[in-house]
């Protein structure tokens, strides 16, 4: 049996924090969906105001993607499925 060596702990591993580490729903730019339609989807589904929905749409358009929601993984998967239902290209990822 190996005695093993002491783990080289350089970072505090906070399990509680890891468990609650947020996930994100990301919407990606595509050449097909209309800007007006994307704003409509963000307003209708998320209930964002027109300025906020427009800001997010422009972020998708100009930066290639935008985080449209953040929270528990299951919730982000539901949002992603909802975006797919509208034809938007959405993915799930752990918050950076």
């Amino acid at each position, binding site marked *: 049996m190996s005695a093993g060596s002491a783990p080289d702990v350089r970072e505090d591993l906070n399990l509680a924090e890891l468990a609650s580490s947020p996930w994100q729903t990301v919407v990606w730019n595509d*050449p097909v969906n209309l800007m*007006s*339609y994307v704003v*409509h989807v963000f*307003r209708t589904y998320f209930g964002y105001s027109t300025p906020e929905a427009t800001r997010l749409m422009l972020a998708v358009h100009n930066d290639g993607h935008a985080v449209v929601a953040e929270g528990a993984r299951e919730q982000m998967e539901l949002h992603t*499925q909802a975006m*797919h*239902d509208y*034809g938007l290209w959405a*993915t799930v990822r752990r918050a950076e």
Partner: protein
Amino acid sequence: MTDLTVGMSRIEAAHLMGLVGQFLDVLDASPPGDSTDPAVRRLTPDAYPDDGDASAEFRSMTQSDLLDRRRDDARVVLAGLGNAGADPDALTEENSLDTVSLRLTTDDMASWLRALAALRLVLAERLGIATEDDHDDEDARFAIYDWLGYRLDALVQEVDSREG
């Protein structure tokens, strides 16, 4: 909320019925399970682009619901056009520019928006549209694609103006 009234020429309505019918054919030609048709894949994109297993699992849980919704939306559009008397078989040279008037509920309109958006995604996949600059003015199919975009944009404006 009161119903919305949407007008379009009889020939536009006939074309739209044909396109939506083809859209349903594309869905029906796709076997259950993971579709290899890029157009169908575009309707159920990878949720985890860097994780094939997670994407496959997500798709296995969402794909059939999503594609059923696409069929339902398409049927709402076909029913609306049918109810308005936009029968392609009744299209003649004389009546092609007559206006057909559709009365749509709020739910119908939501289906219309999703259906036109999905139809454009499928058409774009077939046309190989990968960037916003991909356009062939000589190809009549791009004119249809543009027309669908024009129609969708007008419907979005109409719905948004109602909602305030």
